[in-house]
């Protein structure tokens, strides 16, 4: 258990108004159980009866705690994960584990010896209108556009150890009037109707406020605000030494459904950092269901997709589609299958080539396995949310790269081409974030946009110098600028305000021309 004692767990619940003390005498005979039964129905708090009375009227020597596991949320909180309290899925230190470099190196170096203490994150999301929690409850959201802001601060604790703290956390609805996303992007009427939901709420779901603590000092608090469930006081949590986000503690959908949906959405975001050696190995039958970051369970995932999507007419289900797409992209590949080795309790992948040879995954090239992994995730009916993938151009022939990009565009949600038919068998929203250095990828996306299909947005990243004469600092930072690829925008007169904020056509051409000998075009 993460808690040293029941008392410790109770203190935690009490601090968050999830445990009530009753000082008045209450009888252990019938009275106490009736209160407990009613509380259970109302998903009420745990209660500590401090002065129970025996049936015969004698005061009891010990207090009684009831309804401790009266809600799923409290059960989840009481169990531990790897010895750590499961109040949250992960704390900050855990969350940054897989990231490049050490934690403190993630903070920007403003100048030699001067490193910033805070990182600010902000994200605006479009949530799926229906979410499910792990206990099978399904909730429908009335608002699907939410902005989440998070500030993480690096600070020494009282023992001088460098730690990460959440210093500000906020989630708020994006009102229809302030939402520029559907204005800047092509969105079909059907998509608008089914996915863009706005409720007239203005108040935040989660905020960081200042108030007075018991001693009258100014203190920051995180406040969770009511979300459709009436009659409960909104809990507040002290913010001065938060080492995990409040959002990560919202593990059930019953009280704060929009925050829960936001958390589920962000949990589903994945970055594939494939390891060719891991991809080549067969994977155990009991491997995780969703593709792991290094791709180690690729064969198991394919087997699961095959089982889930098989139909009498197409016994291999979507694995057949994946095979077809792969054959279209990789010269010489004809077919793909996943086989079970019952003795070893493993799945393995096999490719059939045009000349009739069957290749086990051990000898398949890195590039082919990368393409296969990406196609697998995007064809997975369980896949949702954002998938990040680096350098799709690696291991694929430049002449096929264009088809690959087109194929990827067809596998993700396209708000512009979303039709009534798409609402009949609704699939979770899916988005792909690629980074690339390839002019071929840029050319392919440009062509897609020019032809009016694909909802791609291209952003150039470069490093610029930020000069602050008042504070006498000069630092380097990454700049992100959208590329204007829409037809007709090339001739747009430069607007003074957009200078430096959008990528000029000249820069795009220069990028595309990098494959040509400069002497030929300059």
């Amino acid at each position, binding site marked *: 258990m993460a808690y040293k004692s029941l008392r410790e767990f109770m203190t935690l619940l009490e601090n968050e108004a999830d445990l009530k003390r009753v000082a008045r005498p209450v009888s252990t005979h019938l009275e106490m159980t009736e209160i407990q039964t009613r509380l259970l129905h109302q998903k009420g708090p745990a209660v500590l009866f401090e002065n129970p009375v025996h049936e015969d009227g004698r005061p009891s020597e010990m207090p009684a705690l009831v309804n401790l596991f009266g809600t799923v949320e409290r059960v989840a909180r009481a169990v531990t994960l790897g010895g750590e309290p499961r109040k949250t899925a992960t704390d900050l230190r855990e969350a940054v584990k897989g990231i490049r470099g050490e934690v403190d190196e993630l903070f920007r170096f403003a100048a030699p010896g001067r490193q910033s203490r805070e990182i600010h994150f902000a994200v605006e999301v479009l949530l799926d209108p229906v979410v499910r929690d792990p206990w099978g409850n399904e909730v429908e959201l009335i608002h699907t556009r939410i902005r989440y802001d998070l500030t993480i601060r690096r600070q020494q604790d009282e023992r001088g150890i460098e730690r990460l703290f959440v210093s500000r956390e906020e989630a708020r609805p994006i009102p229809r009037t302030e939402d520029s996303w559907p204005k800047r992007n092509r969105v079909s009427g059907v998509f608008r109707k089914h996915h863009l939901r706005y409720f007239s709420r203005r108040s935040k779901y989660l905020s960081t406020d200042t108030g007075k603590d018991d001693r009258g000092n100014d203190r920051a608090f995180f406040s969770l605000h009511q979300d459709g469930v009436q009659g409960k006081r909104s809990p507040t949590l002290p913010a001065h030494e938060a080492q995990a986000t409040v959002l990560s503690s919202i593990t059930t959908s019953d009280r704060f459904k929009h925050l829960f949906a936001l958390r589920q959405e962000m949990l589903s975001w994945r970055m594939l950092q494939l390891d060719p050696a891991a991809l080549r190995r067969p994977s155990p039958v009991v491997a995780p269901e969703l593709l792991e970051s290094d791709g180690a369970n690729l064969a198991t995932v394919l087997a699961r997709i095959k089982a889930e999507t098989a139909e009498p007419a197409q016994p291999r289900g979507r694995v057949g589609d994946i095979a077809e797409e792969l054959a279209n992209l990789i010269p010489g590949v004809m077919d793909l299958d996943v086989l079970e080795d019952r003795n070893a309790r493993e799945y393995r992948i096999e490719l059939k080539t045009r000349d009739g040879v069957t290749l086990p995954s051990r000898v398949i090239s890195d590039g082919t396995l990368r393409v296969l992994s990406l196609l697998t995730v995007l064809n997975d009916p369980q896949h949702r949310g954002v998938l990040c993938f680096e350098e799709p151009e690696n291991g694929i022939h430049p002449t096929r790269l264009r088809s690959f990009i087109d194929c990827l565009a067809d596998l993700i949600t396209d708000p512009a081409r979303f039709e009534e038919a798409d609402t009949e068998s609704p699939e979770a929203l899916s988005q792909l974030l690629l980074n690339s250095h390839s002019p071929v990828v840029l050319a392919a996306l440009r062509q897609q946009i020019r032809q009016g299909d694909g909802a791609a947005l291209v952003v150039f990243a470069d490093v610029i*110098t930020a000069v602050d004469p008042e504070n006498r600092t000069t630092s380097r930072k990454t*700049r992100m600028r959208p590329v204007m690829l829409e037809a007709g925008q090339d001739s747009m007169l*430069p607007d003074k305000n957009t200078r*430096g904020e959008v990528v*000029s056509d*000249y820069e795009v051409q220069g990028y595309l021309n990098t494959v040509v000998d400069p002497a030929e075009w*300059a």
Partner: protein
Amino acid sequence: MSYLGLALFAEGLTDHRFLGSVLNRLCTELCHSHGRTPVDIGEVLELHTLPGFEEQSRAERISAAARRAATAWHILFIHADADADAKAAREERIKPAMNRLTATGEFSSDRIVAVIPVKMTEAWMLADPDALRKALHLAENLDLELPARTRELERLTDPKTQLQQITRLSSTRKRQRRRRDPLKSLPRQLGDSISLDCLRRLPAFQTMERELRQSLTQLGYLHPDAP
């Protein structure tokens, strides 16, 4: 927070590599010392003749590329080597392009800065012997046989040959197989490391910096009463 975009039309690749870095550093330093507000400064965008414009006049080639990239820059540097005569270089190789860009009223002349090294850019690359020695991994006290006073570099008849001779000091000691010409990587490396104060001893650099400061002041980046 405002943004300062820089673009450069230079005569050759060496000029682009060296001047691009120097001009970015110069603007950064000016905004740091005399700036009015915080500003983000981008890398200098290299402007080249657009495909299909090869046969056009130099003025047209510059103006077409600058227009195509217009959303990217606030200040356009036009480079022309002075060769024998700096005045003639300005009249013949900068002014016509400038006129073409300002004629329509779309771009003000404040936004265009001439970069005219006397003789050629290589003279500027010789301005800081310490940076040269470091870039070429030469001994710290090695005599590069350069003029005693930096401003005299403008009197060298052929700074390019001089620079080549210096690079040979480093390449003779390297392995035979290494065919790479140090002149290819040197311009960018020097551009990143050359002392701006050394460059300021060259009259042609002083002229350019004066024009740049005027432009940056006109455009509101620098304090009008900066020293």
